[in-house]
């Protein structure tokens, strides 16, 4: 900073005084600016999820009662998650599609756990604007591809919960989960 000042300041007898004066004032104002910005950080950061929200526990769900062709809704991070036991027909329908032709190319294998290909576990949050698609509850419309149908803006998902039609850009998100036993899934 002192170097910069010396370029602008004529090198006459008063130069030294001017430089020192400018430096002090610039430094004082800069400090105030930096301090002000630093003080803003906590004010911004307080809006982020708090420790208790981040610690929102993982959910363990007993899936033993879900028959093939049925689905349940559970809650993960305050949002619905769909757990669906696919029938062999639904699996073959999903496998019959050439994944590379899809908007968000993924195969059913990539979206399920090894050895549990019939268990389709996805968030129940439409990737368009976040509505809850229909199709998990009993008697709900499953849409023309037999998976899920979002009534808000007409996104249609297939039996692997992949986006097939409508405005949604992505497949329904698969949350992190694991099978702690054959009948219990731990999400998160």
């Amino acid at each position: 900073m002192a170097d910069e000042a010396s370029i602008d300041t004529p090198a006459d007898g008063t130069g030294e005084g001017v430089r020192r004066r400018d430096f002090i004032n610039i430094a004082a104002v800069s400090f105030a600016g930096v301090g002000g910005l630093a003080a803003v950080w906590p004010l911004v950061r307080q809006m982020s999820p708090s420790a208790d929200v981040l610690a929102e526990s993982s959910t363990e769900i007993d899936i033993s009662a879900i028959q093939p062709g049925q689905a349940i809704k559970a809650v993960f991070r305050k949002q619905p998650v769909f757990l669906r036991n696919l029938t062999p027909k639904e699996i073959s329908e999903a496998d019959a599609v050439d994944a590379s032709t899809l908007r968000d190319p993924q195969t059913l294998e990539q979206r399920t756990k090894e050895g549990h290909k019939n268990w389709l576990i996805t968030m129940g949050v439409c990737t368009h604007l976040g509505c809850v698609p229909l199709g998990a509850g009993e008697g709900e419309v499953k849409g023309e591809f037999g998976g899920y149908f979002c009534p808000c803006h007409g996104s249609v998902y297939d039996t692997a919960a992949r986006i097939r039609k409508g405005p949604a850009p992505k497949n329904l998100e698969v949350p992190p989960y694991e099978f702690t036993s054959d009948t219990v899934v731990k999400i998160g």
Partner: protein
Amino acid sequence: MVRLFGPFVGLFFAVALLWSFGNGAYVAITEPAAPTAEHEFHKHPKEVHFASDGAFGRFDKEQLQRGFLVYKEVCSACHSLKHVAFRDLQQLGYSEAEVKAIAKQWGTKQPTFDPKTGDRGERDNLPADHFPMVYYAGQGSPPDLSLITKARHEGPAYVYSLLTGYQDQPAELLKKFPDAKTPEGLHYNPYFANLNLAMPAPLTGDGQVTYSDGTPATVDQMSKDVAAFLIWTAEPKLDKRKQTGWAVLGFLLAATVLAYLSKKQVWSNVGGH
């Protein structure tokens, strides 16, 4: 107007006050306040020091773990800790897995309620849970301990003094105040505000808790450790607070010195300063 009525209002209040003063003085002379046992035998907390004391003090995590053990083995039977979550224990140096195990094995379970069936039950604690409420049906009402060291004057020293302060009622007290005998079911402790409390001495013998770090578990040590633990439960952000504080003060000091120099410079061409 104001100058006309002002003095009258002033004299009105002054006379009323002096009237109160006279009455008070008369009563104070004719009926001096009787001494009470609480007034004469209540003691201020003992002098005791903790690692977290002072502007540079930091928590001693081993001590906090020992204190947690004392809480778990002894206090938690009657006292809840509802503002603290199991996950917070990681700040004491426990690993995530250890916290999980502590939560799972915690004696009091989390109550559950199924809004569909109306069934009530209970489940194991999870790290995200707060310590479960403890319900106590006996005499007295054990306070929640989360904030106890901030909710009492000289809180940490108070907790330590109370735990180590149980004793027989002094003969001198009974001689002076024969009516002040500790009632049945209460226990004499000069560090308690009214001298008699429902809680019996919780820490009674050395070795009541087994410390894994080899520290001898004397009553004094256990009391100090649990007091240290309760400083943490009341103010878990204490270390971070002081750390932030030093950074802020350092910055402000530099900024203030600069502001002073700048002010001096700005005023240098104005005479008389």
